[in-house]
């Protein structure tokens, strides 16, 4: 008996919910000006309507959002791709924090980064017989190692490292910038 009542109540709620959602598409589709009101006053209704009919809503929302309040919401998601490249300190911090690689691997990588920095130091002090172009090879190799370790466990960091590749090289290749490291 209890179960029947419960099912009945749930069905009633479901029907009531569906009835409320069905009304929204004709309103938004008819005039975009009407759609401004729910977005400004009640964001919850808007989110329900979004889930129901994406095509109708998006076509109606585009003209609404341009003159309205939310022009910053869409460009921010687009800006994520053009994030500022990392510098060496930021890269070091991110590598320390990532869970994609183990402690021993992190220490080994740090050793190899230190070795590379020593090579650059030796080059700038005139102690090394290598050219800057030759130092690019170990740099690229080390970066590839890092990327291969990160690409599965932390693809976001791997992507950021790829974008920062030249920025980091520019720091290493510039004696003035390198001196500040």
């Amino acid at each position, binding site marked *: 008996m209890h179960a029947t009542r419960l099912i009945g109540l749930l069905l009633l709620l479901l029907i009531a919910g569906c009835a409320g959602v069905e009304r929204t598409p004709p309103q938004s589709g008819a005039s975009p000006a009407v759609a401004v009101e729910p977005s400004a006053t009640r964001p919850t209704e808007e989110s329900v309507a979004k889930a129901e009919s994406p095509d109708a809503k998006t076509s109606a929302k585009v003209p609404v959002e341009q003159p309205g309040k939310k022009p910053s919401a869409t460009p921010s998601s687009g800006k994520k791709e053009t994030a500022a490249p990392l510098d060496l300190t930021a890269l070091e911090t991110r590598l320390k924090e990532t869970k994609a*690689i*183990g*402690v*021993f*691997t992190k*220490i*080994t*990588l740090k*050793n*190899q980064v230190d070795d590379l920095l020593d090579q650059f130091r030796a080059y700038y002090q005139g102690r090394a017989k290598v050219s800057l172009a030759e130092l690019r090879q170990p740099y690229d190799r080390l970066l590839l*190692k890092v990327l291969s*370790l990160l690409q599965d466990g932390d693809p976001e960091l791997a992507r950021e490292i790829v974008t920062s590749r030249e920025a980091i090289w520019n720091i290493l290749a510039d004696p003035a910038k390198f001196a500040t490291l």
Partner: protein
Amino acid sequence: MNKRVKALALMVVMTTFFTGPSLAAEDAALLKDMTSVIALLGLPCGQVVSVIKKGDNDHIASCQDGNRYRVFLNAEGRVVAQKQ
């Protein structure tokens, strides 16, 4: 008495159920860590299949290809893989 036995059995089952996978995950992470270290150091190994802990930061890693390495942190803070 019967209740106690049931409670104890439940505890054992729950402990096995929850700690078993976490230990396995730790082991898998260590194997992966050792594999990465040996590969980074440019040593032949393939994949590390088992690790024996000798001490703090000191392990014996057995590789798929039969090689065995002692992977440890030396006094200078460098990770070293010594062929056994």
